[in-house]
């Protein structure tokens, strides 16, 4: 059983404080994440007795609180340190120097990953990509990003924190990752043009414009945005919601961080346009906890844009996540928004029919909403003229890894891989990983392949690895990510990814089991075809596509096994006795001739 924290007596002041927090959210269980953030703020964790108290005020079971607490990375049930340090374990962070930074933190604090210092001042943890792959290795300290960390800087950071300085005052600022912007994200975009135009149009006209543009969702799945809005508008309901998915969790991507920083007004504008199109009065921005440092800025922008004369009757609230990659999946996100564990729902019904609190809901990515505002402002034609037949317009790429110029690039869909590698000045590239761990791997020599839904689809992440890198290291890091981020709801993803991770570890160690080559294919197909949501459906892809793109790397390992000492397992021989026994039992009884 999980170690439960000691039952402690809660002081009267604390009790009153917790009560006022729960009342601030009107005893709404749906706002549980907010409540837990607020209760956790001071001591850095929510104790069992505090959880029980929240449960009492909300009139739910203490177990309801603990099942949510135990799901998210950034919630703690145990003392986790006054200052909480989360190191970014993405592969890009690792190859950029995280191992030495990790050691420096461990040495400086005298603890290992997952532990808390004896004085309770510091907790040291690891987490998945925090959206800083262009400025790695990075860490979050008290939810403030520390980019470009060096081992030599660690003692100074700890000393300053010890002396009482706030993390926000110590961290060097996050710099803009923009390298090249094009027609739709260029710096001169003005807020309000799209909104004013939408105000003069009917919902039908707005949706038609979006449909005409050919815009497809930028979150990764690529569903037609116009069709999504139309479906949502057509379901009967007194309430509808617009949700912006700012849970950019795919390792290697950071373009939404940039949009939230510099173009949040256009994103809110897109949400408002969507609200007009589907008839929604309320909107929610689901902001990943890793971007919590942007929350104040976003509030400020929101306040400003809502004053626009064409804004309409539409309010947006910002919901902070709590650390869970799977919440990027739209139905898991909705569960999280309703204050529960981020486990994906069964679909159908899709969110356009039954979404937030059971009402028709449009969930779109940050980039999609920015584009929607620009399509309204510039016209569908300006958008659809760019790109390919099935991938219209431009898209933002977050490029990281072994390149001279990591950062954000706006490219027209259909751009060749060669062109992308040239743009970012890749350094003797070997492996190109498109779309993050849930995407695929291609050889850097395949320069003619194109970035598009038709060929190499991507949610924005593009990582480049040079000849120096070990493909199996990359694959192991990705699979470990999936194992850590699987919600645990369905069998293939929860248990299957673990099996694949073990297999990759064997390959990396040069000790595959006989038959692993065929088994990996079989296992991958089982996981991807039977999983409940996109996480498990895509988790084996990098592995299987790597086997196709880099056959020699795999052959080398598989061949080594032929001469190794491992005894092959003869399944037929091992189960012969059993099969004989079964045959005997199942043999139809011999019919006797009637006497």
């Amino acid at each position, binding site marked *: 059983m999980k170690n439960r924290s000691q039952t402690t007596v809660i002081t009267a002041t604390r009790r009153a404080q917790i009560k006022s927090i729960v009342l601030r959210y009107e005893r709404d269980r749906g706002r549980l994440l907010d409540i837990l953030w607020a209760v956790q703020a001071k001591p850095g964790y929510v104790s069992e007795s505090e959880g029980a108290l929240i449960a009492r005020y909300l009139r739910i079971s203490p177990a309801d609180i603990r099942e949510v607490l135990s799901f998210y990375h950034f919630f703690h049930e145990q003392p986790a340190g006054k200052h909480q340090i989360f190191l970014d374990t993405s592969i890009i962070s690792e190859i950029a120097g995280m191992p030495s930074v990790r050691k420096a933190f461990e040495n400086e604090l005298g603890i290992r990953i997952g532990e808390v210092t004896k004085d309770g001042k510091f907790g040291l943890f690891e987490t998945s990509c925090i959206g800083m792959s262009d400025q790695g290795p990075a860490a979050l300290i008290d939810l403030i990003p520390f980019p470009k960390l060096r081992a030599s800087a660690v003692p100074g950071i700890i000393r300053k924190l010890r002396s009482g300085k706030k993390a926000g005052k110590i961290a060097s600022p996050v710099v803009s990752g923009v390298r090249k912007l094009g027609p739709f994200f260029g710096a001169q975009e003005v807020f309000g043009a799209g909104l004013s135009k939408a105000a003069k149009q009917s919902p039908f006209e707005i949706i038609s414009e979006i449909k005409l543009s050919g815009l497809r969702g930028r979150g990764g799945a690529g569903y037609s945005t116009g069709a999504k809005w139309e479906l949502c508008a057509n379901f009967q309901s007194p309430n509808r919601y617009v949700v912006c998915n700012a849970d950019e969790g795919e390792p290697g991507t950071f373009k939404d961080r940039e949009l939230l920083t510099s173009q949040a007004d256009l994103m809110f504008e897109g949400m408002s346009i969507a609200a007009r199109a589907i008839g929604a009065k309320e909107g929610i921005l689901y902001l990943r906890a890793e971007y919590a440092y942007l929350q104040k800025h976003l509030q400020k922008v929101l306040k400003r844009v809502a004053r626009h004369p064409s804004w309409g009757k539409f309010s947006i609230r910002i919901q902070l996540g709590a650390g869970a990659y799977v919440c990027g999946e739209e139905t898991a996100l909705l569960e999280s928004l309703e204050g529960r564990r981020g486990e994906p729902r069964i679909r159908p019904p899709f969110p356009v029919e039954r979404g937030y609190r059971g009402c028709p809901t449009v969930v779109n990515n940050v980039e999609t909403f920015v584009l929607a505002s620009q399509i309204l402002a510039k016209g569908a034609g300006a958008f659809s003229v760019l790109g390919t037949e099935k991938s219209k317009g431009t898209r933002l790429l977050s490029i990281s890894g072994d390149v001279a110029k990591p950062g954000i690039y706006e490219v027209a869909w259909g751009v060749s891989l060669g062109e992308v590698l040239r743009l970012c000045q890749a350094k003797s590239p070997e492996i190109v990983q498109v779309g993050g761990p849930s995407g695929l791997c291609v050889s850097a020599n395949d320069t003619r392949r194109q970035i598009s839904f038709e060929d190499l689809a991507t949610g924005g992440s593009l990582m480049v690895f040079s000849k120096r890198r070990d493909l199996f290291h990359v694959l192991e890091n990705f699979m470990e990510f999936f194992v850590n981020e*699987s919600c645990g709801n369905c069998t293939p993803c*929860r248990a299957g990814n673990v099996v694949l991770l073990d297999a990759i570890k064997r390959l990396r160690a040069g000790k595959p089991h006989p038959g692993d080559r065929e088994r990996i294919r079989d296992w991958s197909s089982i996981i991807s075809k039977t999983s409940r949501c996109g996480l498990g459906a895509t988790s084996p892809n990098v592995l299987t596509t790597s086997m196709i793109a880099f056959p020699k790397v795999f052959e080398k390992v598989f061949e080594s096994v032929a001469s190794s000492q491992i005894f092959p397992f003869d399944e037929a021989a091992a189960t012969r006795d059993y099969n004989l026994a079964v045959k005997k039992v199942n043999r139809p009884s011999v019919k006797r001739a009637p006497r």
Partner: protein
Amino acid sequence: MKPEISSHERVEFLIDGKVASAPVGTNLIDAIRMNGVEIPTLCWSVGLEPALGTCRVCTVRKNGREVAGCTVQIGKGDVIECGASDLRNLRQGVTELLFSEGNHYCPGCEKSGDCELQSVAYDQGITHSRFPYKFSHYDLDYSGKDLMIERNRCIHCKRCTDLFVDDEGRKVFRFMGKGRKTVVEMDLKLEAEMSKHKKKEAVAICPTGAILFKGQGFDRPIGTRKSDSRSSK
């Protein structure tokens, strides 16, 4: 929400190329079974609604796409594939994953012979798991008043967490943690208050031997258990 089903409104569909029919809105697995085709299920069983779609053992192909059959309803003209060897392999693979993830030593289990996981495995002709056994460590929670949770045998189907409530409608079981570290926990206070009858229900809703009465072994002699002589279905 279940749509109203009027029995005379039927839809026709195809199972492995053969024309079949079932009432409108029937659960896909139910519809298939009505037409004499057996598909194994673990998290779902007739009457256990809404479908949870967690175990994925009932994977079939509907109109060209793999889907957990229990999570969808039959529609007019649906093309359902069940018997293809690749689909059998998927379903069997998922069952085997459960065996490699947990620690299932059937001969010593109180539920042996009445266990749905065991029965599904026999039906699928599983002799061993193709996946290396994990032999992971799981704790046995013996802190309940009458019930215990044997986590070595839990298949995370969520029947107890999502479908079981006590007499006052309160959830007694919960999922804690995430991913491979997910475990079922029991609300000890509520468990202590539950009636004996309710506790029996809790034991019965578990498809394996993960939720059991403390101090109770085999309650039926070998030979009379559900799947001693034939498949449990």
